[in-house]
């Protein structure tokens, strides 16, 4: 207000919803031009409110991104724990039990009926182990956290439904959350190729360029992938965006499908 008293200046308060949001300092002569002052005040008020809303929105977005990252991270930790429990618990016990049974079998060399039943029990155990292994592997790909992306992708490429060219250009390990996200981008893309693409070949590339990691899976199939409805792709977008990355999918009809994830990596 002190400013107003110098050099013949005046002050007009700008209010929104009854609360002062700014002060307009102007030549005292303009006091006569109420309409002009009102118009300037209204415009300034709108601009200020816009700026405030935008800042608020940015803060919310940041918060949202943070909570999405935390949700993805929490799910990851939980799955890792479950896999670990299965691995160290049930799986180990079943292997040990199966071994115990076969040692027992050797003691029964003359009792053929008992031997047969033991052998049957061992086969059942072997099946349970196999099922358990598939479940545990589905819950969390332990190989990624333990041995890294390059090692894990060998298996995915070998089991793919079409011939794959695999290119991994990384030196050393990446942050675990990033490796897991990249792994899922590849495995989900390969699953889609198996289900829908009718492709004859595909390529996987994982390349680090400065502070970004690019993960790209390209096939030569029929294209036309439904990027809206697939829950798998939705889940991938969540994973990638939770890490501040971007997932893009090109899938023109008849033109193959290209899935590209770009992940920032400091």
């Amino acid at each position, binding site marked *: 207000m002190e400013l107003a008293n110098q050099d013949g200046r005046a002050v007009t308060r700008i209010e929104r919803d009854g609360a002062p949001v700014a002060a307009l300092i102007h030549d005292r002569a303009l006091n006569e031009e109420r309409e002009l002052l009102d118009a300037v005040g209204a415009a300034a008020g709108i601009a200020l409110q816009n700026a405030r809303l935008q800042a608020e929105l940015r803060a919310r977005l940041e918060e949202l991104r943070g909570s999405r990252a935390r949700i993805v991270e929490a799910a990851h930790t939980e799955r890792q724990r479950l896999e*670990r429990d299965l*691995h*160290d618990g049930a*799986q*180990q*016990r079943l*292997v*040990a039990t*199966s*071994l*115990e*049974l*076969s*040692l027992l079998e*050797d003691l029964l060399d003359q009792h053929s009926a008992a031997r047969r039943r033991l052998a049957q029990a*061992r086969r059942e*155990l*072997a099946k349970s*182990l196999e099922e358990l*292994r598939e479940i*545990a*592997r589905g819950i969390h790909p*332990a*190989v990624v*956290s*333990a*041995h890294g992306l*390059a*090692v*894990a*992708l*060998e*298996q995915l*490429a*070998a*089991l*793919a*439904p*079409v*011939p*794959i060219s695999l290119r991994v250009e990384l030196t050393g390990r990446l942050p675990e959350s990033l490796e897991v996200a990249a792994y899922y981008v590849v495995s989900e893309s390969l699953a889609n190729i198996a289900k829908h693409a009718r492709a004859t*070949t595909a390529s996987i590339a994982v390349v680090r360029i400065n502070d970004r990691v690019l993960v790209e899976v390209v096939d030569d199939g029929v294209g036309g992938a439904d990027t809206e409805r697939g829950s798998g792709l939705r889940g991938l977008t969540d994973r990638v965006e939770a890490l501040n990355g971007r997932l893009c999918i090109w899938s023109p009809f008849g033109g193959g499908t290209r899935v590209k994830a770009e992940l920032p990596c400091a």
Partner: protein
Amino acid sequence: VRVAIAEDSVLLREGLARLLNEAGFDVVARCEDADDLLRKVRSLLPDVAIVDIRLPPTHRDEGLRAALEIRARYPSVGVLVLSQYMELGLALKLLSGSAEGVGYLLKDRISDVREFVAAVRRVAEGGSALDPIIVSTLLSRQRPDDPIAQLTPREREVLELMASGSSNQGIADSLVITVRAVEKYVSSIFSKLGLPSTGSQSRRVLAVLLYLRS
């Protein structure tokens, strides 16, 4: 044959030791973690170390790192890695450069005592033992012009056994055919795949695996 075991589950460690003792092996070390294993290997130089791929403290890659270190520093010690999961990438890492005195098997294989004991002996003697799952993963891999498709079913069976590390005698026993017949199949397989069939058995295994990988 002198064996060191590194396995953090007591149940399995003791089970393994008992199984090997009964089969006439001399279990010279029972270790809970990788550091202990490396110490024992250095001081005792066993013929073979059986290593769980997931070992304390973090249960991540300690087992694999120990296995690779033993392979690099003590070439006379065979290394047989056991794992709940089979990963082609890990098999390739373990084999990198040589298939001599190395094995990678699914943990459940230990309950097929006869086969398992044979695998331990083979690795201790400088041969190899690769899990059938790894071999079938490699064989089923899709290829643009698949030369595997040119093999007869019998040749494919022989290839699978060969890639798992079986000797010609072993293959002959499994398929109930003569060693000479096996030799014929082997040379036919190598010529169909365009590979040289000479060299030691472990070279032969490695050649087949690297071929299947590409």
